[in-house]
C-alpha cells in the first residue's frame, strides 16, 4: 500500500539552485551554438559568382575553335590537351573528358552518355529518332535561359558536314516549313535526302543543311 504525503505548501523550483550551475558545465550548449552559426554562415556565403561559371564555359569552346578541333581528345588531338587534369577547372568542358577505357578513349567523349539527361523530345516533337541521332553525335550543354549550347560535334558525322560547330545554340530541330515525317515509315525515312535545322550563332539565326545522298571524301561515323 502506498502512502501519500499531503502538504499545504506548494512545491516551487529552487531559483538560487539554478544559478549555482557553473559556466564550465555549459560548454556543450556553447559548442552547439558555434556549430549552428558556422552552418548558417556556410549556407549563406556565395561559393562562386554565377558570372564566373559562364565565362569558364565559353573559354574552352573558343580554345577548341582556335585549334580547329570540334572533337576534343579524339585521335589526333594534342597530348597536352588530352593530358590536362580534369580537376583544373570546373567548367562544363570537363564533361567532355573520355568516359571509357582502352581503345574507346581514342574515340573521345561519348555523346550518348554525356547527353543522357536530355530527352529527345526536348529537341523535336516531330522526329524523336532524328533527335536521338542528333544527341548521339553532338554533345550539348543546357543553357540557363533555354536552348542547348553545342560543346562538340562528332567529326565526319552529317552534323559536322552541315556546318554545326561548338558555340552554336540549338533550340529545336524542327523547322516551321518542314512537313512532319512518319518515323515508323521506312519509305518516308529513306526518301529524305536533306537534313536541315536552325541554330543561333553570334546572336543570329542560321539555317544549316546537308545533303544525305552526297558522297564525302572520308567515311564518317554516321
Amino acid at each position: 500500500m502506498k502512502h501519500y504525503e499531503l502538504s499545504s505548501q506548494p512545491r516551487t523550483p529552487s531559483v538560487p539552485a539554478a544559478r549555482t550551475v557553473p559556466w564550465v558545465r555549459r560548454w556543450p550548449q556553447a559548442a552547439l551554438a558555434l556549430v549552428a552559426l558556422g552552418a548558417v554562415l556556410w549556407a549563406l556565403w556565395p561559393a562562386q559568382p554565377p558570372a564566373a561559371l559562364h565565362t569558364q564555359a565559353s573559354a574552352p569552346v573558343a580554345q577548341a575553335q582556335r585549334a580547329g578541333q570540334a572533337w576534343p581528345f579524339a585521335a589526333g588531338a594534342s597530348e597536352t590537351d588530352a593530358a590536362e587534369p580534369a580537376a583544373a577547372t570546373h567548367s562544363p568542358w570537363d564533361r567532355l573528358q573520355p568516359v571509357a577505357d582502352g581503345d574507346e578513349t581514342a574515340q573521345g567523349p561519348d555523346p550518348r552518355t554525356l547527353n543522357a539527361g536530355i530527352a529527345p523530345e526536348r529537341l523535336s516533337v516531330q522526329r524523336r529518332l532524328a533527335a536521338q541521332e542528333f544527341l548521339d553525335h553532338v554533345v550539348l550543354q543546357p543553357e540557363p535561359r533555354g536552348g542547348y549550347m553545342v560543346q562538340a560535334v562528332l567529326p565526319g558525322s552529317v552534323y559536322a558536314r552541315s556546318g554545326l560547330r561548338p558555340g552554336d545554340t540549338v533550340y529545336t530541330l524542327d523547322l516551321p516549313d518542314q512537313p512532319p515525317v512518319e518515323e515508323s515509315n521506312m519509305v518516308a525515312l529513306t526518301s529524305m535526302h536533306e537534313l536541315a535545322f536552325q541554330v543561333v550563332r553570334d546572336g543570329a539565326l542560321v539555317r544549316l543543311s546537308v545533303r544525305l545522298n552526297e558522297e564525302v571524301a572520308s567515311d564518317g561515323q554516321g
Partner: protein
Amino acid sequence: MHPSAPHTTPRRVLWRLGSYLVAGMALLGALSAQAQTTFTTTYRNGSTYNIYGKEPSAAGKYPVYVHTVGTGEAYDSAWAKAAIDAAVARGFVAATVQYANASFGSCSTISGRAKGIFNATSTSSAIAKLCARGKADCSKGIVTGGLSQGSIISVLAKNYDSRVQASMGQGTGSTYTVAYNLESCMANGKHAQPGERIRIINGERDMFVGGTEAIARSQAELVTGLKCTGRQSCFRSNGSGWYIVKDLEVADLNADHCFMGNLGVPGVQCSGILGVDPYYEYGNNQWGVKATMDWLKTFVRP
C-alpha cells in the same frame, strides 16, 4: 458400377491428355530456354550503341552471325529477333546491332556505319565486342544479314573484316528511291564480299528498289553478279544468288520491301512491323529465314 462412370472416364482421359500436352509444352519451352542464353552489350562508334543477342547455352565455341536492321527499325525488332532465333538455333552466337539508322545515306555514310560495326582493327567495334565473348570463335567464321540499309551494311561488312564468310541481304539493291544511287559500293566487284558469297532476297513489290519484279530482279543481279533473265530465283551450286518473293508466298499477300512483316496495312510498304510472316519464320521456303540461316551455316566451321 457408379452411375457417373461412363460420363467421367472420357472427361478424365481428355483432362489427362490436356495435362500431358501442357506439361510437354512447358518441358519443350524449358528445354529451349535452357538451350540458349540472351545477352546484351554495347559498342562504340562515336557514341555508344546497343547489341542484343543470343548464344547457345551448351559449352563450346561458336561462329558468329551479325544482323543489321533497316532505316528507322528498332535494333531489337520482331524481324531482327526472328533472324537471331533462327541463327542461334543453328549454333551461332547471334546478335542484332544498333546503329545510327534514323536516316539513309550515301555509300560513304553507310560505309562509315558498317565500319563502326565490323572494324576488325578496333577493340570498340561491335564485332570486336562479339568476338570477345566466351562462346564466340570468330576464327570459325562470321556471317551477316540485314534488311534494307542493314542489308547494305551486311554486304559491305567484309570490307572491314576479312573473317566475314558470307552475307545475306533482304530488300537489297543499289538504287534506293530516286535520291540514292549506291552503285559505287554495291555493284558486284565494288565490295570485298564476292558475289558467290551473297544471297539476296527481294519482294516483288519492293518500292525502294523499283516496285516491279523485273527491277527487284535486276537490282539483285547487280549486287550478286548473277543473271537469270525472267526467273523468280537464281542460285549457284553453293546456294549464293537471289530470290524474288511473290505476293502469293506471304501471309498478307504483299511481298514488299519488308516481305518478312505481317498484318501490315495493305499496300503500305513495311507497315507490318509488329508481326513476322509465319511462312518466313517457320516455313521451309528458299526465301524463309530457316533456309537462309542453313545456307549461311555452310560457310562457317561448327
